[in-house]
């Protein structure tokens, strides 16, 4: 089922999650972590575990998995290694809706996750319908995504000008962070991510045929346009589910799939597993670093992701250039 490298990744994920539970503003021992989780330790450890650390680590796990999987699917169906959730307008759609709620319904903060979710999904529906009208080609999707992102960002800037009070809150959302997240608000995104993962798992073999190009895939009996639309919807669900609680985390969907393909290129299923695992590991470690490096101050995970992700991405580009 899983190759050796993916088994190793599972062990690394468990270790990084354990580190995420142990370290942060205050360092805990393994006994205190386990006692806190089992509610047998002192009250303060139980509170730290169940109210702070566990939701935080779980959020990082879900965010990494969702964004990385979204990136993998987008890159597969568009045959473009630069495709990621922020390219096709998902993030900007979520951002615009968030800003609208913050500007016009500032007291209704409970609306934020739903608004960002519908904003992201609305952007995807727009892209899917536009690409359907224009022919669903790979370049069309990327270009229409870029055009939509530009329009949405212009709307975001315009609303910020009208209401400068929301800019600081929006800034945190646009950077991406996991502070203050609760287990309850993670349930719906986690379920949506699992459903999307399941659908693409079933279709994984057909998705892998898309890498042969539209003409070859079509001659092998794949309904290319139909499949591309389903995968785009799943990719949007995956990204939007994350954006609604973690904000606009950018680099995960871009770099993780490229790394995961090198780790497990054998089959699409193996690549999917390694992508989900690598994404989770990356965000868990980035969040841990953000919480620990300058404790008790905290660096949002979005900044840590950019600091880790950008050099890593450059390294991949340099290696590819050397290989070519």
């Amino acid at each position, binding site marked *: 089922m899983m190759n050796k490298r993916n088994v190793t990744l599972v062990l690394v994920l468990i270790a990084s999650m354990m580190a995420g539970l142990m370290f942060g503003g205050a360092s805990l021992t393994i006994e205190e972590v386990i006692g806190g989780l089992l509610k047998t330790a002192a009250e303060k450890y139980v509170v730290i575990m169940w109210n702070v650390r566990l939701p935080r680590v779980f959020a990082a796990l879900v965010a990494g998995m969702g964004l990385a999987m979204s990136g993998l699917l987008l890159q597969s169906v568009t045959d473009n290694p630069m495709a990621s959730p922020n390219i096709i307008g998902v993030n900007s759609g979520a951002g615009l809706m968030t800003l609208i709620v913050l500007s016009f319904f500032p007291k209704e903060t409970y609306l934020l996750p739903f608004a960002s979710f519908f904003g992201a999904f609305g952007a995807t529906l727009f892209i899917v319908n536009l690409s359907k009208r224009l022919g669903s080609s790979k370049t069309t999707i990327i270009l229409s995504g870029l055009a939509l992102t530009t329009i949405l960002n212009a709307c975001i800037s315009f609303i910020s000008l009208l209401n400068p009070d929301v800019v600081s809150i929006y800034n945190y959302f646009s950077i991406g962070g996991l502070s203050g997240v609760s287990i309850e608000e993670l349930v719906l995104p986690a379920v949506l991510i699992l459903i999307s993962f399941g659908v693409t798992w*079933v279709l994984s073999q057909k998705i892998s045929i898309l*890498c042969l190009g539209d003409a070859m895939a079509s001659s092998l009996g794949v309904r290319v346009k139909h499949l591309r639309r389903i995968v785009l919807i799943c990719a949007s669900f995956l990204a939007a589910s994350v954006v609604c609680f973690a904000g606009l985390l950018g680099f995960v969907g871009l770099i993780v799939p490229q790394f995961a393909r090198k780790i497990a290129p054998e089959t699409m299923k193996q690549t999917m597993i390694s992508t989900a695992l690598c994404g989770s590991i990356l965000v868990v470690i980035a969040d841990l670093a953000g919480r620990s490096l300058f404790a008790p101050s905290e660096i949002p995970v979005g900044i840590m992701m950019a600091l880790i992700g950008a050099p890593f991405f450059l390294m991949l580009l340099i290696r590819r250039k050397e290989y070519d």
Partner: protein
Amino acid sequence: MIEAKKISVSIGKKTILNSVSFRLKPHTLTVVVGKNGSGKSTLVSCFAQTKEYTGELLYSGRNILLMSPKERASKIAILPQMLKAPHIHVNELVKMGRNPYLDLAYHMTESDCLAVEEAMNWTSVKHLEASFVDELSGGERQKVYLALILAQDTRVLILDEPTTYMDVNVEADFLKLLVKLKNEKKKTLLVIMHNLNHAVQIADQIIVMDQGKIVFEGSKEECLEKEILENSFHVKRYESEGRLFFESF
């Protein structure tokens, strides 16, 4: 077996294919030749259903447009001109040829595995099965893709300029393989080619296209007798060691 009836394709106001009609004879190798822009590759795109067209493409009298994609893929295999080089193993690529016969779970039966094995043996790429497709030479990659469409197990094979990226020796072997497919596997082949020397070397039937129209359809002998290629391509013919060659004026 395969019949094209009044196939027309237009992009904007430009007509790419203009009422193209022809019929492929079973167990023959038909070569389509024509200058750049004559509509050869567009014709292949119509068979792959990646270009919208008017007219009918029939397989044993049935319109392929009305077949499900999987049914169509179990009858006609197509090798496009531009082939991707994904970072996957060769055996995974060849297995994709069984897609028309597999369910969503992608469970390969013994006969599916045998078809894959046989296709790789036939094209002599068995030794490459653990290699990555993006690490192969152009000729090897073309052979691996040929194995893929052989694993598809169809009666009709359509190949669009399959020797584009090959050097001379590999090209000659590949062409022999196509003739062997027709003779031993009883396949019906439609091959798009730009090299007239190779075309007359392997063809039973020749279709000559010019500006989106068919200007000749018939046997190789008739084509040579009527000097169709000489007139269409402005070339002269000469014979050397029992083989025909064409050369520009």
